[in-house]
């Protein structure tokens, strides 16, 4: 299932956040969206997943999601959004309970995703007992549990320290290499974008417009920490963004 954004424009009252965004999100690839702060990256992600209605334009699903998919458009949030009163298992069960599955089916799915995210030993822990990295792994496991057609990742690593971020990036790469998933990955971190993105969409400052789309053909599993080719791409992205980021930083907030 692909996603097509056609001429998306979004305003809060008279305040234009996104302008005329047209973009194809191909299945089986990770599309990164980068841009200066306040450029509407997160808003764009909420529009794609149907949590907000665009002022103009459309978000289209091309084709049908796979038949076993429980929640085609599934988010991973920056702040994890785990229920603090439910254990790891309970948090994953939460998103499976409304689908008429049997208890045994739910348990099987949970065991499977916990194994894939290496969380099997933490099944009965409460979120408060877990580190930030572990919490985000739980959120990833929860997202995998509903077998999404597209994962919508809103700065998933931004709340983590840099070592944990590095580890989770490796985990995401290995998850993708085993079973390629489709993802829209919003980040302000260019290093993450060049490590995880097949295509990197650069947005201008507000109102966000597509400035350039950078493609990186090198397979994900061959990309590494200090790869000169990736560094060159990252420098290119930064050059695109520098002036925009400076201007965005100097703007007054209208809130």
């Amino acid at each position: 299932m692909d996603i097509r954004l056609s001429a998306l424009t979004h305003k809060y009252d008279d305040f234009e956040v996104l302008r005329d965004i047209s973009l194809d999100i191909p299945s089986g690839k990770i599309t990164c969206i980068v841009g200066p702060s306040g450029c509407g990256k997160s808003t764009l992600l909420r529009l794609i997943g149907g949590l907000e209605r665009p002022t103009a334009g459309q978000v289209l699903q091309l084709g049908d999601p796979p038949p076993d998919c429980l929640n085609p458009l599934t988010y991973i949030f920056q702040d994890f959004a785990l229920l603090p009163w439910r254990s790891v298992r309970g948090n994953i069960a939460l998103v499976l309970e409304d689908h008429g599955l049997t208890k045994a089916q739910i348990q099987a799915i949970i065991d499977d995703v916990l194994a894939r995210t290496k969380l099997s030993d933490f099944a009965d822990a409460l979120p408060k007992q877990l580190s930030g990295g572990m919490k985000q792994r739980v959120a990833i496991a929860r997202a995998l549990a509903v077998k999404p057609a597209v994962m919508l990742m809103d700065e998933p690593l931004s709340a983590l320290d840099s070592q944990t971020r590095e580890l989770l990036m490796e985990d995401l790469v290995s998850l993708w290499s085993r079973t390629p998933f489709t993802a829209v990955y919003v980040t302000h971190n260019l290093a993450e974008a060049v490590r995880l993105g097949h295509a990197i969409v650069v947005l201008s400052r507000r109102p966000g417009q597509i400035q350039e789309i950078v493609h990186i053909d090198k397979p994900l599993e061959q990309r590494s920490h200090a790869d000169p080719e990736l560094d060159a791409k990252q420098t290119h992205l930064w050059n695109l963004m520098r002036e925009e980021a400076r201007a965005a930083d100097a703007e007054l907030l209208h809130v």
Partner: protein
Amino acid sequence: MSERPVKFRGGGFAPTARRWVGLVVFVVLIALAEIGTRSGFISSLTLPRPSDVLQTFVDLYNSGLLFTHLLPSLTRLAVGSAMGISAGMSVGILIGLFSYVRAGLIPLVAAIFPIPKIALLPLFVIWFGIDEGSKYALIALGTFTPTVVATYGAVDNVDRTLIRMGQSFGLSWASIVRKIVIPGAMPGILSGLRISLAIGIILLVAAEMLGAEYGIGAYILEAGSLYDLERLFVGVVMLSVLGVVVSALIGIVEKRLLRWRN
């Protein structure tokens, strides 16, 4: 070059559990009263001697009248506050969830809250009869308003990102309310219950003073009209103990339901 340790400026502002201190305060105050009344420093007209109060309590227990007074009071408190709290929680959740209910009921609740409920007792006697009905109604109304306010405040404070998460995973509206909103509001609801139940105890006594043969309130009223300070204090101490017990019960419920915090 002089060398000295950096002065410590942190610490404090972090309450820690200190068991027994509360008990020690009670014991010291009671001991002071006992010593004062025995030595004549405090006249027996000012304050009854604690040991006499205890003796009066033992007499009350031996006469079998303790439970004659206590049981009706406990029943009234239980029935009245159960009605008020369950209605209050339901209305509070509805206010938290629906904008029209909120717009319609918050002014009404604000109008009812400051009315001294005891002033309405004659009205309740006409509506529900002089018997238990009017007492239940008084306690129910008294516990209703603070529960409503605490509940909708707690629902408003539920983390919106969790609700968005529920929506993004396609959870049904009922699931979001049952599995995210209500558990998330529980801490606020429970701390509201402490206030509601304390108000319930105050109204219980007020209702019993205005027309009851038995009950802690009736017992206190009788003692008061005879200026029998020992019995008056027995009644008052029973109320304090009731308050402490109720608060401890809520503490236990909090520990069980809110194990995920702290």
